[in-house]
């Protein structure tokens, strides 16, 4: 049977170990690399480097590790596993949308209850990434749907 367009193949199951290792060992490795870079003088202004980079750098090994884990096949991959993965992806995106939209509210819950001034948390980047994800999902879905329908129209007898 012909596969649909924009089919992304999952990584083989053996990559799960790599994902797990990056998740566990990634952070200490990055911390050591930075320490070496500072010690050798490659990073000259270490104070500004840590202020600008240290916080986002924490997420890199976590995101790479989790991405590899999520996009790797199971040892025994079959249609039920694929269905369960699809359901997890759909619910994951759904909870991400709800969670990010509500983030300014629950991060300000205490200040609201105390009648203090409310500050908007720094979620601009996250909202931008979420918008891109949702735009991609919509465009990709409509593109696939359009092509499938067009192919069916030409095949109609």
């Amino acid at each position, binding site marked *: 049977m012909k596969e649909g367009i924009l089919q992304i193949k999952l990584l083989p199951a053996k990559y799960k170990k790599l994902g797990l290792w990056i998740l566990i060992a990634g952070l200490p490795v990055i911390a050591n690399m930075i320490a070496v870079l500072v010690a050798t003088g490659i990073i000259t202004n270490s104070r500004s480097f840590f202020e600008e980079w240290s916080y986002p750098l924490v997420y890199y090994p976590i995101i790479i590790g989790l991405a590899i884990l999520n996009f790797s096949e199971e040892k*025994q991959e*079959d*249609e*039920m*596993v694929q*269905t369960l993965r699809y359901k997890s992806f759909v619910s994951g995106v759904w909870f991400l949308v709800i969670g990010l939209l509500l983030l300014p509210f629950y991060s300000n819950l205490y200040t609201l209850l105390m009648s203090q001034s409310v500050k908007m948390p720094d979620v601009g980047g996250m909202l931008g990434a979420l918008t891109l994800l949702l735009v991609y999902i919509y465009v990709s879905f409509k593109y696939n749907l359009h092509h499938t329908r067009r192919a069916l129209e030409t095949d109609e007898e």
Partner: protein
Amino acid sequence: MKNNIKVERAKKDITQEQLADMLGVTRQTINAIEKNKYLPSTLLSLKMSALFGVTVNELFILEEGD
């Protein structure tokens, strides 16, 4: 939806593990199908009906509300 997979499996005297191997799926998938926790694809349903020598309609029975 009900199914007669357990019955057909018993007639042929094959275990869930053996059936899973024949169909190229996991034993957990066969277990989930038998317990109506997972609805198999058309392809897997056809493979199963061919293996048992029955029609898909004999293997899977629609219930009211399906």
